[in-house]
């Protein structure tokens, strides 16, 4: 992946497939590190599956037997001297607290650090593809905090879908404004 934001888009799709109702994407940056957390309230994974989830030859997909999402994120983190971990509680055993958390830490000054890239397009793409799922996106860069919570947006919109083009434009512009980019 050319941008970390593409890994984020890819990993968040796993949460959506796991029937998550809320996906939280948290990015916390300091001068030295970037921490990425993707947390969902989906159906979780069994302990057995969790143990082989970063193996590229394990997947839930039935069409073929190779899943590359988590191995690619792990590689991207480890090649900077960082790491990735996954915790999960499956719905059958944890009816109240099921879900999965993926945490990856990157060292930004390492030569092999993949830049975050266009994370705004990642958020917009997620909402476009899964307007019924809620997303909380928080990006902390030192003092700066960028936040988007689709639960707030949904409350205002009522039954208008979040994937409506005007809403997607609003989300994009809201994030651009918060990042302080000028277009």
């Amino acid at each position, binding site marked *: *992946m050319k941008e970390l934001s*593409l890994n984020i*888009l*890819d990993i968040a*799709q796993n949460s959506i497939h796991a029937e998550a109702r809320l996906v939280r994407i948290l990015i916390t940056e300091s001068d030295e590190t970037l921490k990425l957390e993707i947390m969902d309230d989906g159906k979780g994974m069994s302990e057995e599956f969790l143990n082989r989830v970063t193996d590229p030859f394990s997947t839930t*997909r039935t*069409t*073929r037997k190779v*899943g*590359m*999402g988590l191995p*690619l994120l792990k590689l991207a983190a480890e090649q900077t001297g960082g790491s990735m971990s996954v915790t999960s509680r499956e719905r059958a055993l944890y009816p109240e607290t099921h879900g999965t958390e993926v945490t990856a830490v990157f060292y930004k000054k390492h030569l092999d650090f993949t830049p975050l890239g*266009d994370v705004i*397009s*990642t958020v*917009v*793409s997620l909402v*476009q*593809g899964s307007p019924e799922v809620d997303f909380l996106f928080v990006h902390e860069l030192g003092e700066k905090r960028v936040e988007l919570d689709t639960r*707030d*947006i949904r409350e*205002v*919109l*009522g*039954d*208008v*879908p979040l994937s*409506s*083009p*005007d*809403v*997607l*434009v*609003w989300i994009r*512009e*809201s994030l651009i*404004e*918060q990042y302080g980019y000028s277009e």
Partner: protein
Amino acid sequence: MKSLEELKAIRERMQNKVILREGGAEKRIVVGMATCGIAAGARPVLNTFVEEIANRGLTGSVEVSQTGCIGMCRFEPIVEVFEGEQRVTYVHVDPAKAKEIVEKHIVGGEPIVEYTVGSAEK
């Protein structure tokens, strides 16, 4: 901060349109957004389709959606256009081709044969 007032205005505008949309879209654009598609550049392709459809006022009649891996990873980004019984599969799509597909196929009604999987496999 973008105001929630603007969102309320969007809601007012959209509530009328939602009724129109219940007839269902005539055309469907489906973009492959699995790991293979994303790595090959599907995200800007998806966003180009979303913008083009919105800008041309086609929101009610054309639906843009996402799908997973269909097992032809070497051809990603893959885009399928559905219209009635007809399905056209475009391969190696980039934002420029996406714009052209909207203009010639979605609006003009003529599929672009040279971008289809049939041409790529020859």
